[in-house]
């Protein structure tokens, strides 16, 4: 029930942001469409902790900026490699230490979001990652990002 309420509020906030016009008639359309969406989501059984991970929203406040900084660093690194042509691609096989599937997905997506590393396969808790250079791969295998995501997962 808590999830349904927060989903409704979120959708309505989104609607208000997109609309920009707040006459009675148009706002009532917005309310109607939000209710329709929530009802459909309910029928589809997708209002659960995976489809709507509201409990992780707070944790992302610390994780987001850190990830952003990693992305900036990785971008500069890959751009240098584009210019110099200094690449040495290799595969990396690592274990995702997160407990929940959601945590592993966040980890895998964070890896992909950082240029220079792309998660190619996620089966069970094993990740197959393609990296642009051996150094990048070894850096990833040291697991700084993995422990960050584990911490994020534990904060809920």
């Amino acid at each position: 029930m808590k999830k349904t309420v927060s989903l409704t509020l979120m959708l309505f906030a989104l609607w208000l942001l997109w609309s920009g016009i707040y006459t009675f008639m148009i706002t009532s359309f917005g309310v109607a469409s939000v209710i329709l969406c929530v009802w459909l989501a309910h029928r589809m059984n997708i209002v659960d902790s995976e489809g709507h991970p509201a409990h992780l929203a707070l944790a992302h406040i610390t994780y987001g900026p850190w990830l952003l900084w990693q992305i900036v660093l990785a971008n500069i690194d890959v751009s240098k490699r584009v210019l110099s042509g200094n690449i040495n691609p290799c595969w990396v096989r690592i274990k995702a230490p997160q407990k929940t599937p959601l945590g592993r997905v966040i980890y895998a997506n964070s890896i992909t979001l950082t240029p220079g590393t792309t998660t190619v396969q996620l089966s069970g808790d094993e990740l197959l990652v393609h990296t642009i250079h051996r150094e990048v791969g070894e850096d990833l295998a040291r697991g700084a990002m993995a422990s960050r995501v584990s911490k994020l997962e534990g904060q809920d």
Partner: protein
Amino acid sequence: MGGVVDILSWICIGGGLFFSLMGGIGLLRFPDFYARCHAAGITDTLGSILILSGLMLQTGIELNLARLILILLFLLFTSPVAGHAIARAAHQHGLEAQVDGEDVTDA
């Protein structure tokens, strides 16, 4: 519009263009598909982040700012999923990567 904000926004947009260009060049220059994925990642991440932030600085506080933030969020949520899906499809299709040396493991 303050002069400082204006300059900052142009620095952002210029940087975004630079990184997008790097991504485009990498897309052409890198030797195999998996390496090109990384190049495409540059455009998807820092390129879009910087260009959209530049536009945000031009906007000021209004509804459009929220729209830009949402576009950025959508991009950041969807691009890794799409990138992973493409790479996984290629891998399952048996597309070989040009790698030398052994796999790196954490063990």
